[in-house]
């Protein structure tokens, strides 16, 4: 990048990063020096002590001044000559290196046309080099800022339990009902985390069934709350719920009618809930069947709604299109009913689990549910921050790997109960 960067006697490391940026500053500084004449008013300070306006070219002047110590009177004379001829400051950069290399006939060189041309080319090369360096440094600075912002975002997401609400990012066109719900949901997730910690502690402390029941009832009420909030949100923005914009991408992948599929949840739990009594096995089996039947019925109802909607939108000539639009709007209002019934199904499923299982089993069961969705949200977060392009570099790769290890560790701790 800087192949022709000449040597500096008093060039400090700090100076090297500043010099590129201050090359434009140096112009004014050295012009000032030039205008003062033969440099007799140059300050003989070390570059380290110089303030921000110092530059490589200023260093050049110092170097040249230090050459005063070396018995090369001719160099001093030629250095002085340059300001007087009124040539701009970059010229001062070159003469020093030139002089260092070829010590003898400088006074003749100053008049040689070929030399002048070469000096001009060198000036241009040095100028381009300085500009390239400046651009590169600016690019590095902005990348550094971007990286620290990424790290901050990741830190924040991690502390919020990997909540990656998609609603806010979608072009900014989010309805107020949806925005309010997203905020309430974020708060609900924080409460969820607290409830889970409370249950985990209670299980590990081997509290009595009575005490555990109180804690568990609190958790059920907590779930009732989110279904109530979703009901309110469905009235103002059913599309926000039904498209899953309030959840993370991985959760959205498994979305059924604006939330989790109850039969899938029961299926997932069946493996985790051993050992069960005969009666409990029957209870869970019946719950799985009834949720499947209910889901099937609702899905068929929604299908009919979609078919009806398609027919309305597709039919009609240009003349009565407004009428058909009004009819279609009317049909759309039925969506809210389906999301409400689906949420009702989810709520009833959780309540039934609470009924079928013992207090201890139910506590563990709800922990499993919370853990499962926590991991799903974490998956979304990791997926979003995975390294995709090589130029990002090993730093982020290491960071993402560290995150993965942290998630694994925390998950292992959580699941140690089962």
């Amino acid at each position: 990048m800087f192949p022709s960067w000449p040597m500096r006697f008093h060039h400090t490391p700090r100076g090297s990063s500043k010099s590129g940026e201050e090359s434009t500053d140096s112009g004014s500084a050295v012009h000032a020096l030039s205008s003062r004449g033969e440099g007799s008013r140059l300050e003989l300070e070390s570059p380290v002590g110089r303030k921000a306006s110092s530059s490589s070219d200023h260093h050049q002047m110092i170097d040249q001044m230090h050459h005063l110590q070396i018995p090369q009177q001719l160099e001093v004379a030629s250095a002085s000559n340059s300001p007087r001829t009124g040539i701009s400051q970059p010229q001062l950069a070159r003469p020093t290196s030139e002089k260092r290399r070829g010590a003898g006939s400088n006074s003749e060189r100053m008049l040689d046309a070929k030399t002048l041309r070469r000096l001009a080319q060198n000036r241009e090369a040095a100028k381009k080099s300085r500009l390239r360096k400046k651009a590169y440094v600016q690019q590095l600075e902005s990348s550094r800022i971007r990286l620290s912002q990424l790290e901050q975002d990741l830190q924040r997401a991690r502390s919020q339990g990997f909540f990656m609400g998609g609603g806010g990012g979608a072009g900014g066109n989010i309805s107020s009902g949806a925005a309010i719900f997203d905020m309430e949901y974020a708060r609900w997730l924080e409460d969820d985390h607290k409830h889970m910690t409370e249950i985990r502690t209670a299980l590990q402390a081997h509290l009595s069934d009575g005490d555990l029941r109180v804690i568990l009832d609190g958790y059920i009420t907590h779930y009732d709350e989110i279904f109530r909030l979703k009901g309110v949100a469905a009235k103002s923005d059913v599309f926000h719920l039904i498209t899953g914009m309030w959840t993370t991408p991985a959760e959205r992948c498994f979305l059924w009618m604006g939330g989790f599929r109850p039969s899938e949840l029961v299926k997932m739990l069946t493996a985790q809930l051993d050992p069960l009594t005969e009666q409990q096995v029957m209870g869970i089996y019946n719950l799985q069947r009834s949720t499947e039947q209910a889901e099937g019925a609702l899905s068929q109802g929604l299908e009919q709604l979609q078919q009806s909607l398609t027919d309305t939108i597709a039919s009609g000539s240009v003349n009565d299109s407004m009428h058909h639009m009004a009819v279609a709007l009317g049909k759309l209002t039925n969506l809210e009913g389906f999301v409400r019934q689906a949420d009702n199904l989810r709520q009833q499923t959780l309540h039934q689990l609470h009924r079928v299982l013992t207090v201890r089993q139910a506590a563990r069961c709800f922990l499993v549910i919370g853990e499962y969705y926590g991991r799903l949200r974490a998956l979304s977060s990791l997926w979003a921050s995975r390294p995709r392009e090589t130029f990002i570099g090993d730093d982020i790769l290491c960071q993402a790997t560290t995150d993965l290890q942290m998630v694994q560790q925390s998950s292992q701790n959580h699941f140690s109960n089962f």
Partner: protein
Amino acid sequence: MHYHAESYGNYNASTVRQNAAVDPLERVVRLASGSAVVIFSLSTCCMCHAVKRLFCGMGVNPTVYELDLDPRGKELERALMRLLGDGSAVPVVFIGGKLVGAMDRVMASHINGTLVPLLKEAGALWL
């Protein structure tokens, strides 16, 4: 599924006189007692379609009254709305002559395991 459209077909004079005198709510109750599983519905309502699919999926054969196809269906709708105290009049389900309720109540009773015994008791479901 049995669809009853009392407006068409088998009307005789005595039936008409009977129906004319009956208060809508009484008519609802009378109709509901007529079969093991009775669903009051609207032919265009998708949620009604869902509840019908639910029962058919369980092997039940409900009797369905499409109120939009009944000349006095509007009265029945209003009566049902007053009965439920809720926004939508349909779908409403009666089992064994007793009111179960709208879709959410039907779903809840299926999930908590009370629907199947009720159906068996009414003779709508065996095994």
